[in-house]
């Protein structure tokens, strides 16, 4: 818990200091929603919002370790944080607070732009709140694996996209069902299960990948 909080506080502080970087995913999400709304007219469902949230996520998560690697703070983290996984979890929690959380909160606005109503928006927010942390955790595995290759945005996307697909399917189907008033609980439960699985397993995989990245 100490490691989690120490790392969370540090990363939030850095994010606040570099506002323009930190705001990137949210700005991307809002711009893409706006452009998509203008380009297609108001006939897209919540699935489109999920797709945009997913891309905003993968773009943001790609750089989550890059700067720490360059500055050597990543190797210090690996040397000092015993065990490593709570610190990794703290780091990703800070990252999600500035990428997934604001997107989930702003998603009703996106729904308004893309489907012309806020029907089922509360379920959309809930699916994003449960789904985007899973995306961040899975994406961070890819980001950790590709640190040594330098800038690797597209590589991370290609690596993690197959693992994003179940989250996208259940997230989009639950929010689509909510707009028509169909039952959503099954998809929500699956999303919750995916989150529980990735919170418990992903930090270990990320820690291992980070350790490997420091071998040279």
């Amino acid at each position, binding site marked *: 818990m100490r*490691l989690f909080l120490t790392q969370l506080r*540090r990363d939030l502080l*850095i994010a606040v*200091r570099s506002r323009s970087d930190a705001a990137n995913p949210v700005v991307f999400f809002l711009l893409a929603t706006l452009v998509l709304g203008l380009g297609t007219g108001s006939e897209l469902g919540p699935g489109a919002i999920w797709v945009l949230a997913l891309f905003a996520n993968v773009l943001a998560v790609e750089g989550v370790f890059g700067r720490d690697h360059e500055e050597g703070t990543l*190797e*210090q983290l690996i040397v*000092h944080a015993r065990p490593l996984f709570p610190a990794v979890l703290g780091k990703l929690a800070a990252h999600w607070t500035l990428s997934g959380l604001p997107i989930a909160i702003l998603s009703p606005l996106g729904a308004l732009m893309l489907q012309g109503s806020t029907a089922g928006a509360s379920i959309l927010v809930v699916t994003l709140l449960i789904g985007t942390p899973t995306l961040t955790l899975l994406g961070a595995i890819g980001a950790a694996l590709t640190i040594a290759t330098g800038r690797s945005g597209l590589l991370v996307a290609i690596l993690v996209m197959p693992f994003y697909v179940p989250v996208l399917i259940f997230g989009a189907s639950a929010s689509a069902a909510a707009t028509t008033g169909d039952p959503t609980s099954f998809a929500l439960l699956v999303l919750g299960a995916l989150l529980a699985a990735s919170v418990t397993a992903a930090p270990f995989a990320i820690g291992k990948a980070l350790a490997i990245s*420091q071998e040279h």
Partner: protein
Amino acid sequence: MEGWVSLIGCERLLHSMRRRGKPHELNDSLLVAEDLRCIVGPRALFVGLSFTVEPGDLIEVRGANGSGKSTLLRCLVGLAAPESGDVHRRVEAQYLGHRSGNSGRMTPHENLRWIAGLRGVERDSDSIDDALARVGLGDAGHAMCDSLSVGQQRRVSLARLLVAPSPLWILDEPLTSLDDAGVELVRELLAEHRSRGGGAVCATHRALTLGSAAARVVALSRGAPGAPGAP
């Protein structure tokens, strides 16, 4: 089982599996390196390298550029794994690498607080200020690290040794980009550390002792010590 693991190229995994379950007797040593072998690409950096770090020891790792000094230190601190051989540490080391290890978007003060937090050392603001004053950064403690010179950043990294103390220091060219006073400071810190019973392994090109007990030298030259290693 072993055949399969070797087949899929996981000798290192096999090695760690074999190694597990035979605890090593460290006695009083801070660090024991046994028969380390490291191969990068086609050539062996070092083969059959063994040494121990006892309390009060200073070990200078010397060698030409590219002789594997940094790789050796990264193996000692656990960031890299040697091809074969074992490293046993009695304590978690403090490591000073080539990269500063300080976030440019935090102040030295905040960076040190972070390290102390990771180590679980309770530090109040004053003791961090004291450490910064000791390394000559009394007035720069609350400027962003990005705005500091390379030498000043190096001093922030040195302050880490004071804020989160460890009996084992592993320092990779600690004198790099320091001025004369900084070099003197490193020598003082090392002398104090050794008098408190700490040990240190330093990669360096310049002598790190001044008046205090002599250092032991581990010299690295391609493939030595031991037989020239043909991979």
